[in-house]
């Protein structure tokens, strides 16, 4: 079990879930990760989750073809991974670092 304060292993876990195509679980873990470490990005995580629901719905109803689906899905995957980096480099974290240095 990963400790909830282990930011490194928690972000690794999400990346592994993305790489292994476990997107619903990765999205849940991403929302928990953002809520714990940088709540100011929570809306971004929610928007990514909402867009995933939309893309999955669109391919199910054949509103988009597989090529469009792959493109849209990959864009969202990159957004998820970028968000993890943003959380790790967020102002809160940087302020914490300044506090450590002082």
């Amino acid at each position, binding site marked *: 079990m990963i*400790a909830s*304060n282990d*930011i*490194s292993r928690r972000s690794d876990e999400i*990346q592994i879930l993305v790489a292994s*195509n476990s997107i619903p679980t990765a999205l*849940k873990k991403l*929302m928990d990760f953002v809520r714990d470490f940088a709540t100011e990005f929570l809306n971004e995580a929610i928007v990514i989750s909402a867009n995933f629901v939309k893309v999955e719905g669109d391919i199910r109803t054949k509103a988009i073809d597989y090529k469009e689906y792959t493109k849209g899905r990959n864009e969202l995957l990159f957004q998820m991974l970028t968000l993890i980096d943003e959380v790790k480099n967020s102002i809160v974290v940087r302020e914490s670092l300044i506090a450590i240095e002082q």
Partner: protein
Amino acid sequence: MTDKGYKSAIEVREVIQDDASKATRLLVDFAKEYAFDNNLVHRAIVLSHEYATAVSDESRLQLSQQMSKLLEEIIEDHSNNSNTDQGRKKKAIEKAVEEFYSKLELKNDVVVKGKSLTMAYKKGNFTLSDVDIDLRLGEITGVVGENANGKTTLFEIIAGNIDIDSGELSYPYLQKNGKFDWPSIKNKIAYVPQMLPRWYGSLKDNLHFEAATHGIKGRKNREEVEFIFHRLELADFLDLKWPQLSGGYKMRFALAKALVWKPKLLVLDEPLAHLDIKAQLTILNDIRDLSRSLRFPIAVIISSQHLYEIESISDNLIFLQEGKAIFNGKTEDLGKTRKENTFEFETPLSLQELGERLKDFKYGSLVNNGLYFVITTSINVSQLELLRALLSRDIDICYFRNISQSSKQLFR
């Protein structure tokens, strides 16, 4: 790049050429270890994802070529940055962030403390006797036992719905300045009963209403509702009403209603009843992850007849029998003081045939409980040894489980 780095690069390159499906994870690990540009790590992860979802040999071939190209880019990025100030600074920041959070203490305050909780019903002869409880933030306590042995009574006491006859019950984390103020305490307890009460209107309206009744209003209300319905995968169901939902989604929605206002204590009475396996796993994983939140940890007490599932997520376990706690402690301590090992298994053989085949194997008892055979052995016999003994005697095994450290043993 160091010798170790070059060796890793050569290994990844060879595996991509031999079997790209095995190289995806290696490439991701290599990128995380050696890339300074995070975009390269992201590309490795997305390539891995694409490979896992590729539908044709042609697309897999194209992806393996992209993997080879990306590997060379990572090597080049590392060579260009490993000796620069920017590269060193990036690694130093990552290390500092990890160290900062690893030093953060996890909240573990006692939310509920109960000592010798006792309550007797005036009608009927059932009594809950001398039960101790210690529920902490970020911990899950599982309550198991046969039906009508006191689980719901204990939950009703903790939730403040029925009073105890004797014992001590306090809510240290929920009592402001140590004062016992029921309305204030109950406002931080979420209770999800076994029989869910019907609701009216759409799921979304109910969630907004539930948050508002706990003082969450305006923009915050919208944000909390949005978070919880996406977090519990309810986005497709928001406009549905009670009769339109399956049992699994009704329970998920009840959980959403309970969690939307961030309670400190979550009491869940048999949430897995009537759920299929997939829904059970989803709910248990959600409860486990949300209770262990760094920022908003919750103390959870949960009852169920699904022993293995409950044991797998519970930090502590209480086994109730006729109103008494037969076991009350850390889940990992179950069976620690046992004098024998116990295993259950399934085979098409009869008890008599099984006994004959095992006549030269030393065991304590062998019984058929109607579903499985249950065998006890000396504590020195491992599950591997027993499995070998069964298989070497031509005993077909359809199911096998070591229950030496499970509460299932206590049901005997």
